[in-house]
């Protein structure tokens, strides 16, 4: 298939792996930030092509995984109301709240629907003026422009029965939180290509300088990721710490400025809790005061609801790259995709689910003590 096969070529992948082996003289730890990259790495087995010592750790870039449990509980509370049509992207439905998940709400009569675009939810609100349509707006900077558009459209249409439960998160503050942690092992980053398509990469330049860490904006196909790793290792070997753009076919330095304008217009930067990590200042987006009428937390009075996470789940350590999924004692035993303890076991982008689906041969060896290569 055009535009994918070119980036999955086995011969080129082997050439990149060989080039990587030639330039690597010592161990390096690199974090791929985005869950889409984690998914591609385990799906295509890219970690198996790396030279010994180059270790990939899986970052906090899965929106499903970092959505805090209390927000899931809020979603469940709203979705269970008879007047509500609750719309969400598919993989949010299986994320466990403290008591149950959105699929269970659906099984018990809640009107929970999977949509592919927030604009579909706006359409539903137009078609069902007698119902309250709520869209669960999760995601990074990538999904924010479309969600902003949905709010704008609802505003223009004067819809009184549309609202959003917003849980948007931002990448750069999370990277800084990881780099500032005393447990940090990350020496270089593959930045999330699609986030940078929207935001560009100027905001990564101060991070690279301040923390002396190379950051390579990287795509999602196997050859993209291998090339991103190669560029990152070359920088590390040469003692450089720059922002480079591997994903030049989609990303410009300043990104998509109209989309950024849209985000700034509809949302404002707020502190945000990250599941398993805790609150990170200035790390999320909430609706700007001018659009507060579309805030589902206000409309349904759930803003004060709080919840505790499972004590056993180590997803926080996994999202920060401190531990690998199979190093968790609950992995594949008490925590499985059918009965996830944490969100990293739910989404196909979650590191634990990806390991469960694709790398149980590694995991079958049991929890390991030392950090093992992917």
């Amino acid at each position, binding site marked *: *298939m055009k535009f*994918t096969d070119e980036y*999955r*070529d*086995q011969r080129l*992948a*082997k050439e990149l792996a060989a080039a990587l082996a030639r330039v690597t003289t010592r161990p390096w730890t690199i974090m791929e930030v985005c869950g*889409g990259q984690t*998914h591609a790495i*385990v*799906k*295509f*087995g*890219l970690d*198996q*092509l790396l030279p010994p010592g180059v270790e990939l750790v899986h970052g906090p870039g899965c*929106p*499903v995984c970092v959505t805090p449990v209390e927000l899931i509980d809020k979603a469940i509370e709203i979705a269970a109301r008879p007047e509500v049509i609750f719309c969400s*992207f*598919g*993989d*949010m*439905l*299986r994320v*466990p709240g*403290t*008591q149950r998940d959105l*699929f*269970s709400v*659906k*099984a*018990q009569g809640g009107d929970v629907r*999977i949509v*592919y675009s927030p604009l579909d939810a706006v359409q539903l609100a137009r078609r069902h003026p007698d119902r309250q349509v709520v869209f669960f707006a*999760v*995601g*990074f900077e*990538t*999904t924010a422009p479309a969600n902003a558009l949905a709010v704008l459209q609802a505003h223009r249409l004067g819809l009184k029965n549309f609202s959003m439960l917003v849980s948007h998160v931002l990448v750069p503050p999370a990277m800084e939180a990881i780099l500032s942690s005393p447990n940090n092992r990350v020496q270089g980053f593959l930045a999330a290509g*699609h986030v940078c398509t929207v935001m560009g990469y100027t905001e990564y330049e101060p991070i690279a300088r301040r923390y002396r860490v190379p950051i390579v904006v990287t795509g999602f196909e*196997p050859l993209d990721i291998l090339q991103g790793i190669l560029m990152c290792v070359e920088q590390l070997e040469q003692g450089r710490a720059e922002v480079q753009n591997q994903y030049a076919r989609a990303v410009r330095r300043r990104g998509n400025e109209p989309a950024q304008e849209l985000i700034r217009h509809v949302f404002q930067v707020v502190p945000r809790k990250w599941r398993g990590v805790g609150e990170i200042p200035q790390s999320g987006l909430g609706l700007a005061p001018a659009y507060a009428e579309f805030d589902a937390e206000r409309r349904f009075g759930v803003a004060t609801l709080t919840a505790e996470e*499972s004590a*056993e789940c180590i997803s926080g350590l996994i999202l920060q790259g401190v531990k690998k999924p199979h190093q968790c004692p609950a992995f594949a035993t*008490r925590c*499985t*995709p*059918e*009965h996830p*303890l944490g969100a990293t076991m739910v*989404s*196909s*982008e979650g590191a634990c689910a990806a390991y*469960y*689906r*694709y*790398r*149980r*041969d590694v995991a*079958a060896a049991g929890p390991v003590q030392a950090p093992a290569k992917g």
Partner: protein
Amino acid sequence: MERPTGLPVACPLPLTDHPHIMLAHGGGGRLMHQLIERVFLPAFRNPALDQRHDGAVVMVDGLRLAFTTDSYVVQPLFFPGGDIGTLAINGTVNDLAMCGARPRWLSAGFILEEGLPTDTLARIVTSMQAAATAAGVQLVTGDTKVVDKGKGDGLFVNTAGLGLIEHEQRIGPDQVQPGDVVLLNGDVGRHGMAILSVREGLQFESPILSDCAPLAGPVLALLEAGVRVHCLRDLTRGGLATALNEIAAAARVQIDIEEAAVPVIEPVRGACELLGLDPLYVANEGRFIAIVRATDQDRALELLQAHRLGEPPALIGRVTAGQPGLVTLTSRVGARRVLDMLSGEQLPRIC
């Protein structure tokens, strides 16, 4: 089993880990297997059921009969490449074919919702008749029930089928041996994506048609030619990946397949990429795998080619002694990984 929330287990018989039936219990994945293992098998246990096949094989006066049933609840009722009627005939015909039987007689039970246009029913019955003729089966008995408006989804159909086994071969996971080859009769993913595109109002440049088709022809051709067929499985709910996992688990063998060898047509690949779905888990209604003796592979592929549906049939993998129950896939870039069974239905990813 420990519960994350510390809730007491209310039911004295922990039938499943879920207090309510979830859609995923019907998704063909791990939850459905739990339901079968914990609820149905203990209640009905007998040797024919214990074969755990798409249909049961029973003996009557020296005759070997295959017997199966299936219910059809697809929405929309009409989709590109077929409708619920063609599905109800071919699905049951194919379950019989997967037992190595020649499908002969079918029953049809209709559950109609009050208010269903009679014309809709007539169209569906007409296509059932056409599908039955094409598959060489007769509808010999039936039943009709009507439920109140709002208590059904337009129309549900159940069909049951009887077929005759006219050969001496035993077909089932217990016959699978290390060294066998895995053959696939065409490209995968069409039916699921055809349904999804209508259901979600997705439009593609070229519409994806369901692959719904009767499979008794190619199966009987293999058997009549004396190809040593060890196991057959049609790739319905859960798709190719689920079928391979079921067989590997039941046969206690490892199966290794090559991703690049599995044919997927461009529109299906494109739609799957767009939605974040894996075509290996998408449902088919006219595709099956035949696990055959390696020395028969060329002849078997020729016969499948003669009964070709869609893209050419392909050898996609091999059975090894390896790790019982494990299915591995060698990806396009040449690395190997686990090909797992899903817990329920595939969920579209966020970004």
